[in-house]
């Protein structure tokens, strides 16, 4: 593919690093050939091939759902891959074809992985974490009787090994400090040091390692990575912070929709270029979006100021946003940046603060009932956890919220002393929406847990529509449902917007989806609004908004030049 042959002579890795001149004759550490993967007929990865050389830092960029995660799962032999039918193509490590049965095989073969979320034991010291389950042992008398686990830890040797790994990383990390007392950056270093303790580590994969770090911590990490590369370790660096990618990577690999879009050396690359590669695609003719002139503007229905939301993994730090009456506002952004926190916080599901006004009236936060009463409704991204009563029937699922909030399907008894639930009215309501949204089911009593993903999503929508909301938040409405159902769900949203004038705020990771339906699209990055664009805006503008503040600044500088 790239004209390199895997069987070339092995050279000392020290000379190999960044050696473009010798590149063609060096055996790559990792070589992917035609790797692909489909889940249940849905293709998520197709014919991906590239090489990673010793001492090379390869930046892997792509949107959510571009196939990065799947690729890493395949590389690590995660069991979920084998359980869903394996993968196509081949992977070679130092020239030898490999196929790992479990992540432990991959680790043994010399691949280290640092995940986005910390995988550390908080009550252990850095040393104990670095050597977790790989401790140095001294045999005891009981070993022969009860097995190896009766050996005693050799603390002295462990300390030496840990300091060696930390030294290799070149960062000031106190090996005897408890992880729970560390600043976040040091936790990340601990994770990396853990991989370095393995004698044979040849390839290090870092998944969004800087996502949780402060700027200075991120800088320290990047220089540590450079040091590692200079020692001959190959690194795959996955990050959405494009400026970081451009700062340290020798090569950039761009994935989009499961395909390898571009593999290029990091020479003369601009942020704009990479951003457009990452998100760009042929935009289907969006006949469905309103022409600019017909877009609602002016009268704001929802005004958000200084909103913060403590939603784990989706923290919103400071959002100011105004939504016009009758529009469909899209909220986009990469995972973990806080776009999901926005509706969840306003609807009171996670602790939040700031000011939210609906129709000029202030809506109290942290009180789900108050927001519902004010006329807002929410279709959660977590269908099974938040959106549905899996053990109850469709009728309950659709009618429950409306019953509690609006008294739908309630018969007052004894002059309103008792409020009797009318199962008949609930059934009728359910039947109405089953017909309106074309929910495929055996009847209103079918348990929600037994429905398909698409039909579950329709039930969730029906639940929200039954509230007759002025403003509807829809979060990831098409996640995990098939293509046909996706179209139906989007059409339904559009219909309700056009026919009933319901204002819709739609949060989605799929930019294309937002661009196909929304009047405006706000991109959330690092917990606040990075910018608002019309759906027709150039694709790389969206990409840049997602790429982080520093990247935007860098891009601005580039442009100024």
């Amino acid at each position, binding site marked *: 593919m790239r004209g390199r042959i895997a069987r070339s002579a092995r050279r000392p890795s020290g000379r190999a690093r960044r050696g473009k001149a010798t590149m063609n004759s060096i055996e790559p550490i990792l070589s992917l050939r035609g790797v692909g993967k489909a889940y249940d007929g849905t293709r998520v990865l197709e014919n991906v091939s590239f090489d990673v050389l010793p001492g090379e830092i390869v930046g892997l960029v792509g949107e959510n759902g571009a196939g990065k995660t799947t690729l890493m799962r395949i590389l690590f032999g995660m069991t979920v891959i084998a359980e869903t039918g394996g993968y196509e193509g081949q992977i070679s490590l130092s020239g030898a074809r490999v196929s790992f049965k479990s992540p432990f095989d991959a680790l043994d073969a010399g691949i280290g992985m640092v995940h986005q979320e910390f995988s550390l034991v908080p009550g252990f010291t850095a040393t104990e974490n670095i050597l977790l389950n790989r401790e140095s042992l001294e045999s005891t008398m009981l070993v022969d009787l009860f097995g190896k686990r009766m050996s005693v830890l050799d603390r002295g040797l462990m300390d030496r090994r840990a300091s060696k790994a930390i030294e290799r990383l070149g960062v000031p990390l106190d090996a005897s400090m408890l992880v729970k007392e560390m600043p976040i950056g040091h936790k990340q270093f601990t994770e990396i040091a853990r991989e370095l303790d393995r004698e044979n580590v040849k390839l290090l994969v870092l998944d969004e390692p800087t996502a949780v770090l402060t700027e200075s911590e991120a800088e320290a990490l990047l220089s540590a990575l450079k040091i590692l590369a200079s020692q001959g370790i190959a690194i795959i660096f996955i990050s959405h912070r494009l400026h970081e990618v451009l700062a340290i990577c020798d090569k950039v690999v761009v994935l989009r929709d499961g395909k390898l879009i571009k593999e290029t050396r990091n020479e003369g690359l601009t942020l704009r270029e990479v951003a457009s590669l990452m998100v760009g695609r042929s935009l289907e003719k969006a006949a469905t979006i309103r022409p600019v002139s017909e877009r609602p503007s002016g009268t704001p229905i929802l005004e958000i100021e200084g909103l913060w939301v403590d939603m784990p993994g989706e923290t919103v730090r400071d959002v100011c946003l105004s939504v016009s009456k009758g529009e469909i506002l899209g909220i986009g952004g990469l995972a973990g940046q806080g776009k999901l926190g926005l509706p969840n916080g306003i*609807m*009171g*599901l996670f602790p939040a603060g700031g000011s939210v006004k609906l129709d000029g009236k202030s809506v109290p936060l942290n009180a*789900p*009932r*108050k*927001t*519902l*009463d004010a006329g807002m409704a*929410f279709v*959660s991204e977590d269908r099974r*956890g*938040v*959106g*549905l*009563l*899996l*053990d*109850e029937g469709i009728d*309950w699922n659709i009618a*429950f*919220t409306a*019953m*509690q*909030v609006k*008294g739908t399907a*309630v018969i007052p008894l004894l002059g309103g002393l*008792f*409020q*009797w*639930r009318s199962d008949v009215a609930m059934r009728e309501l359910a039947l109405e929406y089953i017909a309106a949204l074309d929910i495929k089911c055996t009847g209103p009593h079918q348990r929600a*847990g037994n429905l398909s993903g698409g039909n579950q999503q329709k039930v969730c929508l029906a639940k929200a529509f039954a509230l007759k909301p002025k403003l509807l938040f829809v979060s990831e409405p098409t996640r995990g449902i098939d293509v046909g159902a996706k179209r139906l769900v989007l059409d339904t949203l559009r219909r309700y917007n056009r026919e009933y004038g319901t204002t819709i705020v739609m949060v989605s990771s799929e930019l294309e989806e937002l661009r196909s339906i929304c009047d405006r699209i706000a991109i959330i990055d690092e917990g606040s609004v990075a910018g608002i664009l019309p759906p027709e805006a150039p694709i790389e503008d969206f990409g840049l908004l997602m790429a982080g503040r520093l990247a935007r600044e860098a891009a601005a500088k580039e442009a100024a030049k």
Partner: protein
Amino acid sequence: MSGVKAFVADFGLPRIIIAVFLLALFVIAPFVGVSLTSSFINVTARFGMNGIMVLAMVPMIQSGCGLNFGLPLGVIAGLLGATLGIEFGLTGIAGFGVATLITLTLGAIFGFGYGKLLNRVKGDEMMIATYVGFSSVMLMSMAWIVLPYKSPTMIWGFAGEGLRTTISVEGFWDKILSNFLAVRIGPEFVFPTGMVLVFAICVALVWFFLHLKTGTAMTAVGSNPVYARASGIDVNRMRLVSVVLSTMLGGFGILVYQQSFGFIQLYEGPFSMAFPAVAAILIGGASVNKANMVNVFVGTFLFQGILTMTPSVINSVIKADFSEVIRVIISNGMILYALTRKTKVAR
């Protein structure tokens, strides 16, 4: 074949074993000289006696508070109601009525405090409920000694130190419900119409409550608390209501039990009340977070059936009294089974 498997998986093997076991007992009974009618009447009487305490499990299970091992708290309310009624010297329907009123009031107060506590320890309710129940039983044991009761039927005659361990309700409201509209069948057996009727009314009331808007909300809280919260339900308040309801039912349950049994059992009496009730509702098909009226009926009948039938039948068959051991194994085995099953909705 797969239908059978699905049924077994859904209904639970232990329940099927227990039902088959009880059926076998009934089948064997006539052959070993145990009268079916008398057995049946016995089961009915125990059914009426214990039913309401089993019913008391339902609200808390429905709201997701788990199995109510804190039932002794309600029982204590019932004991206080009964002893105060006697202390006031009230007899007959008035006495029972006043006892009920006091019980329900106290049950509501205890339940409120208990519910507040359980709301602050979500996830650990069952273990804490057990020990809160136990320690309140011991606290009340001290109180029974110290409280200035005067009624001569209740206090130790000679020592004069506190209340008796068991107090007869004879002359007050002995079998007041059981004998109401009672039907005499044969020379020895009386069908306790009144008591069964009261049980049925209680079941109907709880059923009615669960069909109200509030009851619906409570069910949703138990089914998926996050869903309920997203629907604007105050989850803690619903849980509180369910605990109050459970505690009040527990208190009334023990009153009904006492009038049929004939005695009030003080001191360590309430200890042994929770486990049989918990086991019964589980045998009836309830899970840790889902229960309905059918579970109450079926469970009480199966469990009391086994309690009644095993001693007589097994004794006649193998001349050894296994019944207690069987009861211990069945009731605790059932609870263990329920606890180790994966619940469908994560909490």
